[in-house]
């Protein structure tokens, strides 16, 4: 127990990230099921309007910040050091700190579901209820007087710290800790996409942090940054939020693209087609991703010049994205394809993500978007991108790397059930949303009139959502089941080409007995010019130093929710206690002896 609380081992932190994020994924999924149950028929009466608004806000917030990002982070943590031939990340204690901040931020945010009585709210749940992008001026004290929005803006600030710390950590790790010979253009595609993602994190999160701080000032100290009554501007919030929010979309999708770019070559027995093009198209996507934020705001009425610029820039993103898809198909072409579950999910990613990409083009066309935005059509779009894309990619990664992470192979039979149920469920759930949206159903409504004629579509969506629920339970059983079985995974169960497959599953604490020398992009494969790397010695040639654990990352992280609780309760002394914990924690951390 103590060794897990104090761990600085990237592999253990990766597993902690995984289980915590998977727990939040189940929570967010449960919220989705309640939402779908409510909408299964017109005039649904399952939950109140207030509760429904909390549920969809928390569903979006949870899935984006507490499930998908940290599930990617689980792979960054576990896999990146292995792929680059390193013994750990650059800053192991900072890595532990990121995890604890993420965990505590997630718990803080979700505590709002039961915190009502503490605020005399007259109901149990005071969860955030202004939507996951929390548009001003609905979030002002005037229109949201309760603690709901406070939980949201404080929770997101905490989570932002976790993301930023991890972002810097992985940029430094990937740039500085590569094994000899592992030049940038020999990096595995997952490592490349991770690097790009982390640059997006460290540039985009400061923007939302600023926006949240301004919102906090508006709510706590009576400033007027977003309040027109005091000369502020609610549209400013939209610009700031989406300047973060659009890069965030690529923060969510690029790691999944990286996973797919690992899985397809392995199970086609062919190198990734157009490796450099895939890498550079990722870089181009990230750059363009910074110049398109206002396509979320076409309905705001920015005027024809701004609309044209943002519509055009958005359409350009279709080009590097299309290039990636064609290169993936090129990878499959002429290969010897083995349909393991990981491969099924990777191919499923391509098949589903393209649907989200194409509906994205119809959103990019500003006038067309005026009929689609804020309807279920856009809900369908984001779910084809984030479920059909990100989650399918993450599932591919789970089946692919689970043996490496735990030493145990997941059941392929259960995996296939999981895959086909997921495919069926997601198409039943999300495809009809295109139609219900275009037939006039706005998003974020807890009830709708039977006369709209969209009841049947909603019922099908609900059935599909529950099928996804069943699929997820199958997966959960598959995961849990492996825990009770002996280690059965060889070093390289799939015939992978990258360094993580050169070491035992699960890897020893020091990862590599000797740091490998890398001579090609596919070190474990026979290529035209390179023989496979010689196997590493089974035992270390000399004792390997690994850092001991530390309590200080967790203690320092613990100060942040204390500060947030103080702010929430308007108790300055509590805030100061939190500040003291953070300062003392950092100080002790900095002067902690290297050896423990």
């Amino acid at each position, binding site marked *: 127990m103590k060794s897990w609380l104090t761990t600085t081992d990237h592999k253990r932190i990766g597993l902690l990230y995984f289980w915590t994020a998977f727990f939040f994924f189940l929570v967010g999924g449960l919220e989705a099921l309640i939402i779908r149950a409510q909408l299964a028929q017109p005039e649904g009466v399952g939950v109140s309007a207030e509760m429904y608004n909390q549920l969809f806000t928390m569903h979006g917030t949870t899935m984006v910040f507490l499930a998908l990002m940290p599930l990617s982070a689980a792979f960054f943590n576990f896999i990146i050091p292995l792929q680059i031939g390193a013994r750990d990340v650059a800053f192991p204690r900072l890595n532990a700190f990121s995890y604890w901040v993420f965990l505590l931020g997630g718990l803080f945010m979700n505590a709002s579901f039961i915190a009502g009585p503490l605020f005399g709210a007259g109901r149990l749940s005071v969860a955030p209820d202004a939507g996951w992008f929390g548009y001003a001026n609905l979030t002002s004290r005037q229109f949201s007087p309760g603690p709901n929005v406070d939980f949201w803006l404080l929770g997101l600030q905490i989570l932002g710290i976790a993301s930023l710390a991890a972002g810097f950590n992985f940029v430094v790790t990937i740039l500085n800790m590569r094994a000899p010979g592992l030049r940038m253009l020999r990096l595995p595609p997952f490592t490349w996409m991770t690097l790009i993602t982390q640059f997006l994190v460290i540039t985009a999160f400061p923007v939302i942090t600023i926006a949240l701080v301004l919102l906090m000032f508006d709510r706590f100290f009576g400033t007027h940054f977003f309040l027109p009554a005091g000369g502020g501007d*609610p549209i400013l919030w939209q610009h700031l939020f989406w300047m973060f929010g659009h890069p965030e979309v690529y923060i969510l999708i690029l790691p999944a693209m990286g996973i797919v770019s690992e899985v397809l070559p392995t199970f086609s027995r062919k190198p990734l087609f157009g490796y450099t093009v895939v890498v550079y198209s990722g870089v181009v996507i990230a750059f363009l991703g910074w110049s398109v934020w206002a396509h979320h705001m076409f309905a705001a009425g920015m005027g024809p010049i701004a609309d044209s610029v943002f519509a055009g820039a958005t*359409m350009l993103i279709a080009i590097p994205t299309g290039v990636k898809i064609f290169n993936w198909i090129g990878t499959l072409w002429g290969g010897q394809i083995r349909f393991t579950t990981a491969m099924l999910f990777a191919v499923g990613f391509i098949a589903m993500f393209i649907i989200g990409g194409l509906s994205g083009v*119809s959103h990019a066309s500003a006038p067309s978007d005026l*009929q689609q935005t804020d309807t279920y059509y856009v809900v369908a779009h984001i779910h084809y991108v984030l479920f059909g894309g990100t989650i399918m990619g993450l599932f591919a990664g789970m089946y692919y790397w689970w043996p490496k992470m735990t030493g145990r192979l997941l059941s392929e039979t259960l995996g296939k059930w999981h895959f086909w149920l997921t495919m069926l469920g997601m198409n039943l759930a999300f495809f009809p949303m295109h139609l219900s949206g275009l*037939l006039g159903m706005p998003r974020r*409504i807890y009830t709708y009139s039977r006369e709209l004629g969209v009841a049947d579509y909603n019922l099908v969506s609900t059935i599909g959502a529950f099928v996804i629920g069943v699929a997820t339970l199958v997966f959960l059983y598959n995961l849990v089941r492996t825990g009770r079985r002996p280690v059965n995974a060889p070093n390289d169960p799939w015939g992978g080409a990258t360094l993580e497959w050169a070491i035992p599953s699960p890897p020893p604490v020091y990862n590599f007995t000797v740091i490998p020398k890398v001579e090609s992009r596919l070190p474990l494969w026979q290529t035209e010019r390179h023989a496979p790397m010689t196997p590493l010695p089974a035992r270390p040639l000399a004792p390997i130093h690994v850092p001991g654990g530390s309590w200080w990352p967790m203690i320092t992280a613990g100060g942040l929710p204390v500060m947030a609780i103080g702010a929430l309760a308007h108790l300055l002394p509590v805030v100061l206690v939190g500040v003291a914990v953070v300062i003392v924690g950092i100080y002790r951390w900095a002067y902690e002896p290297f050896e423990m």
Partner: protein
Amino acid sequence: MPLVLALVLLFLTACSGPFPQTVFAPKSDFAVELDGLFWNIFWWAVAVFLIVETLLVIAIARYRARPGAPPPKPVHGHTLLEIGWTLAPALILVFIAVPTMRSIFATAGHAPEGALHVEVIGHQWWWEYRYPTLGISTSNELHLPVGTPVQVEMTSADVIHSFWVPALGGKRDLTQGRHSRIAFRADSTGEYWGQCAEFCGTSHANMRLRVMVESDSVFQRWVDQQRAAPASPAKGSREEKGQQIYRRSACIGCHTIAGLSAAKVGPDLSHVGSRGTIAGALFPNTTDALHHWIQNAPGLKPGALMPPQNFSAEDLDALVAYLQSLK
């Protein structure tokens, strides 16, 4: 892909209208423009979808691993192919981007000279309409003459809302302290449904609206009716009693009835009896619905500002009768 096609067929057969809020029945120049653009993009998307999914299906069908087969040729890439599949989507995008830009400028929201001006003001959770040139103020049901250009100027009294009547065009946000605009010319008479599209708090789902597009003569009759002084009930009638109740109860604190009260918190009731719906186009304007609404508005529409009213059954009957007489 076959799954998706099967689903599409299933829906087309299982579900049939009427769809009063559909985007697929455009009834104005603005909506027709957006509809054309959507279908242009849709068919390009279908073509790309079919090409990519076909390639994908061929690849996974043709290149399944067979036991004993020699390892595949380690192809690393192909420059010409890369150039080709970079240029192809770029070329397709030209055919989408050019009409998009044209539509952006064509639908920028500026009506020609002589257009009818309408102001839309969003409130949590109802719509206020003003016709500055006609001196009319009403709510939730917008009346417009067919074939006449309309200039809609919009703002919000509180949070951001979005005015969306799919048959008449795209949505546009209403923001406090700003003025946004759309312009269109409705091309056929009818009653079109709409709804707030930007999440605006508790009862966002209940912020609905109707637009009545009418022939010139019907519209003119409506205008004359709205400009007339509110009906004054006959002496000793139940309606007159209702008027007395209105006058001495909390109603006057929030509502306007020309000549009686001039408060601006809730909708103007001067001609409430002429409307087909109440409460943000949520309920039909019937005696029953008015009863329930006055007795417990927040129970029917969560968050509604009008507190439950405790009238005796007799007083409530009179008040409702009076409101209904305000044609």
